[in-house]
């Protein structure tokens, strides 16, 4: 699975205003909601599901990236969004370092394999140091979209 198959480019936020974990989750879910990707009236439920999941174990897995996510019965189609904060976000990361790039993913409950395939693509790229560096440096939505598309085309970047 490739980024354009599940990332809503219209909703990406190149400079998040929030600097804390929950604030960033609210901002990104709200952006997906505005892009009409969540279905009516689901914004709050999904925000809470992602925060709850985050409290169980941080998805800030180190190296400046976090992948908050949740499966939710109200979600019909899997969708992800990217948000950046050059100042750093306190995400209670495993390595205790700030997070600069966030990829937030919401999935339906009944398609676990699709969720896994999206995660596979996300982590394949996040593992790449160059990709992480380029992502962090993006300043506009267009740059983020170009980078994600190009990373899929050319995995070595």
């Amino acid at each position: 699975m490739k980024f354009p198959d599940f990332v809503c480019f219209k909703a990406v936020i190149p400079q998040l205003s929030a600097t804390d974990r929950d604030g960033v989750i609210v901002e990104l879910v709200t952006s997906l909601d505005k892009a009409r990707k969540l279905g009516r009236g689901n914004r709050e439920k999904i925000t809470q599901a992602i925060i709850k999941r985050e409290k169980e174990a941080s998805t800030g897995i180190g190296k400046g990236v976090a992948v908050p996510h949740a499966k939710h019965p109200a979600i019909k189609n899997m969708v992800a969004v990217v948000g950046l904060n050059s100042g750093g976000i306190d995400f209670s990361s495993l390595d205790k370092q700030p997070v600069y790039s966030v990829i937030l993913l919401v999935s339906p409950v009944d398609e676990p394999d699709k969720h896994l395939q999206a995660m596979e693509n996300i982590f394949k790229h996040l593992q790449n140091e160059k990709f992480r560096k380029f992502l962090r440096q993006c300043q506009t939505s267009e740059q983020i979209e170009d980078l994600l598309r190009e990373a899929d085309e050319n995995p070595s970047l």
Partner: protein
Amino acid sequence: MRMQTGHDSLEKVACETTVEIKNADGLHMRPAMQFVDVASRFVSDITVSNNENTVDGKSIMQMSMLAASCGTRLKIKAEGPDAQEALNVLRELVEDKHFDEPTPKEKKTQ
């Protein structure tokens, strides 16, 4: 450190086993973290392979990349003084405890 390297290589044991993912949701991030937590308790090097990739069993980023769905078979390889014990415990986690998550059958009856 130098002496230790020589010593270790003498008693280095390499073992491998194949396990099958049993929980319905597969190896998503939470189970991957459990796996990494358990693997990290051992000094042995631990790698995990599907058909395409071989990854470090102690790295959450690499383990999440495997995207192993329910029914997928993974090869776990351990190398070091506690290799056999590591494999036993990891097999138990994946196959017997199935990461404390429901199997497809259990999920249906929930």
